[in-house]
């Protein structure tokens, strides 16, 4: 044994390179250094070249006055606001489109996904046709279609279609009355918050009672009564401190009220219909992933078909649906940047478009814009991962 050990040790030294662990480490270090050097080189090269060409750099431009108007803004904005403000306006417009898009896409997608599995031949084929058509046409073309087909074929503001002189639909958009809150509205606002809290505790109490005693309590009607009744009583007892601001034709356009511009309408419509087609397929696959035995078992236990879907199938299907659904939400958010094509003032159009061109700070602005989309996507991912963990099968 004493003879054998040096024999084993001598070839051990050259083995260092053929040791897979060591080799892996070396290559990882080399790769990391290369990547770091590459990034360092790119940044330095950009800065040097920009300086040698006399292009100004830095983020100071965000404090300068913008001097241009924006079609739609959720916050106070005018021509004297700063470029930093244009960034916020664009960002909020992007978030608005994304939130509305996700909301409608989810609803349409779930309905279509369930209809796709309907035993009614006509309904299931209609759903299939919808999915196949909208999934396979490029999104940009769909946006153009809705914008030009709907936005451009409506009558002008002077010939606007109207409902009772309070709703106006024209090629300038849909104008609806805007609520104007007066000083005493605070009480109603508090009443709304209080009734929401009350409904949440009611639902919790009902669930606890159901689990403990098996007795059902119809929370739907009680909740509705609380949600509508309490604020209504407070609202009228404080003397109805709110009135509506009706839109009216004045000069070239409608003044007053809230305007839903055709650009926003076309964009949300196109994004939700397009993404819903993908969500429908995700929902279908999720439902089909639940074994048929589960449905049969539930029905053998005497559950009604609606309950089977709600209590047995959907909870299990959600585990399959959520991960791809997250990707669809991410896609929708990023696709909203196509807004620039139809003049909707989103982040790309306002900030990476007009602001970039007026200031010429391309590198900074594109970097900010890319980080914003990254952060938005990460937030959606984090939320959906949390939701996924919550919905995951709990093993006891």
């Amino acid at each position: 044994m004493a003879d054998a050990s040096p024999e084993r040790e001598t070839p051990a030294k050259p083995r260092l390179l053929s040791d897979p662990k060591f080799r892996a480490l070396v290559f990882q270090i080399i790769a990391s250094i290369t990547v770091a050097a590459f990034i360092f080189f790119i940044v330095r090269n950009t800065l040097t070249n920009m300086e040698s060409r006399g292009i100004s750099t830095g983020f100071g431009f965000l404090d300068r006055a913008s001097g241009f108007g924006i079609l739609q803004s959720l916050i106070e904005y005018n021509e004297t606001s700063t470029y930093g403000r244009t960034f916020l306006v664009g960002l909020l417009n992007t978030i608005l489109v994304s939130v509305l898009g996700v909301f409608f896409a989810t609803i349409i997608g779930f309905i279509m996904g369930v209809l796709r599995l309907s035993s009614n031949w006509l309904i299931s084929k209609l759903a299939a046709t919808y999915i196949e058509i909208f999934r396979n046409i490029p999104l940009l073309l769909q946006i153009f279609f809705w914008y030009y087909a709907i936005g451009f074929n409506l009558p002008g503001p002077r010939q606007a279609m109207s409902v009772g002189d309070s709703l106006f639909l024209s090629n300038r958009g849909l104008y609806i009355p805007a609520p104007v809150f007066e000083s005493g509205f605070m009480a109603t606002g508090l009443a709304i918050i209080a009734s929401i809290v009350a409904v949440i505790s009611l639902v919790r109490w009902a669930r606890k009672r159901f689990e403990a005693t098996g007795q059902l309590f119809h929370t739907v009607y009680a909740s509705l009564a609380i949600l509508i009744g309490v604020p209504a009583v407070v609202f009228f007892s404080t003397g109805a401190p709110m009135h509506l601001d009706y839109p009216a034709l004045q000069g070239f356009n409608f003044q007053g009220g809230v305007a839903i511009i055709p650009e926003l309408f076309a964009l949300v419509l196109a994004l939700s219909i397009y993404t819903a087609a993908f969500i429908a397929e995700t929902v279908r696959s999720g439902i089909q992933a639940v074994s048929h035995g589960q449905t049969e078992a539930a029905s053998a236990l005497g559950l009604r078909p609606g309950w089977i879907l709600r209590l047995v199938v959907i909870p299990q299907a959600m585990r399959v649906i959520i991960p791809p659904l997250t990707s669809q939400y991410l896609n929708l958010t990023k696709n909203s940047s196509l807004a620039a094509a139809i003049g909707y003032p989103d982040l790309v159009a306002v900030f990476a478009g007009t602001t970039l061109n007026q200031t010429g700070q391309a590198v900074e602005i594109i970097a900010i814009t890319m980080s914003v989309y990254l952060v938005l996507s990460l937030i959606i991912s984090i939320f959906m991962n949390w939701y996924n963990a919550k919905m995951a099968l709990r093993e006891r």
Partner: protein
Amino acid sequence: MNFKRISVLTAAATAGLMIAGTVQAGATFDAVKKKGYVQCGVSTGLPGFSATDDKGNWKGIDVDACRAVAAAMFGDASKVKYTPLNAKERFTALQSGEIDMLPRNTTWTFTRDTSLGLNFAGVNYYDGQGFMVSKKLGVKSAKELSGASVCIQAGTTTELNLADYFRANKMEYKAITYDSSDETVKAFEAGRCDMLTSDQSQLYALRIKLTDPNSAMVLPEVISKEPLGPVVRQGDDEWFNLVRWSLFAQINAEEAGITMKNVDDMMKSADPNIRRILGIEGVKGEFLGVDDKWAYNIVKQVGNYGEMFERNVGEGSALKISRGQNALWNKGGIQYAPPIR
């Protein structure tokens, strides 16, 4: 082992980029001479300035700015390649070296000249911003336009002037900004906006794109100064000089009465001014790094400024714009070039 190959490739790519990165700014002149053509950034289609005709050839006074430079440098005005750009892309394309010069109805402003690393080589068209409205509206003046929706092209000085004008006159407006001028015309025609605003010259050009050009009218107000001219990158004065003097040569030629037709006869002229412009005596092309007959080549192949104007935007074109401010300084306009001597 794949890992190793990737690392090697990355290293090679990095080295390659380093070499590319060390190419110095200020070498545009040499680079253009070496590759044998001028890469010219133009609009995506603006009749009179830069647009393709029915045979697919680029035409317009901005196109002619590039052709003049090519004529001066290579003695051949056709040695130009075109890159169509929208308003938002144009400066980045020039800054990054994708194009050599940018004559793209671009307004010379303080910010653009000083903070973008660019230089304006001259003014080939004096313009001003105006409004086009549908005749149906019955509007006679821009002052009646409070509350109007305005179609506009993104990334232009127009957006800023519009805001200034409405603010100064205490009027309201809603701006709908599109990427290309074609889209603004489409939206204007569909009634999405009450008026379209742009440089006056462009309004005339865009008006003939309407299905019924007579349904719209251009209002008399001109609300801004828009000196349009070719732009080059900072850092190559040789190239800047060539672009600038190619334009000046055209203006000087018009002033001296040298035209495409008579330029060969003019070579025999005794007038010392004409002899200097045509490179027969006194001035040498080598100061610009080009042939002595550089100005002769420009006039022979592209024409003098007046000929270029009439052919593209003046009476000889569909736009029928009068010379106005763009007439020579001694004919009531403000086009003026330093002497060639």
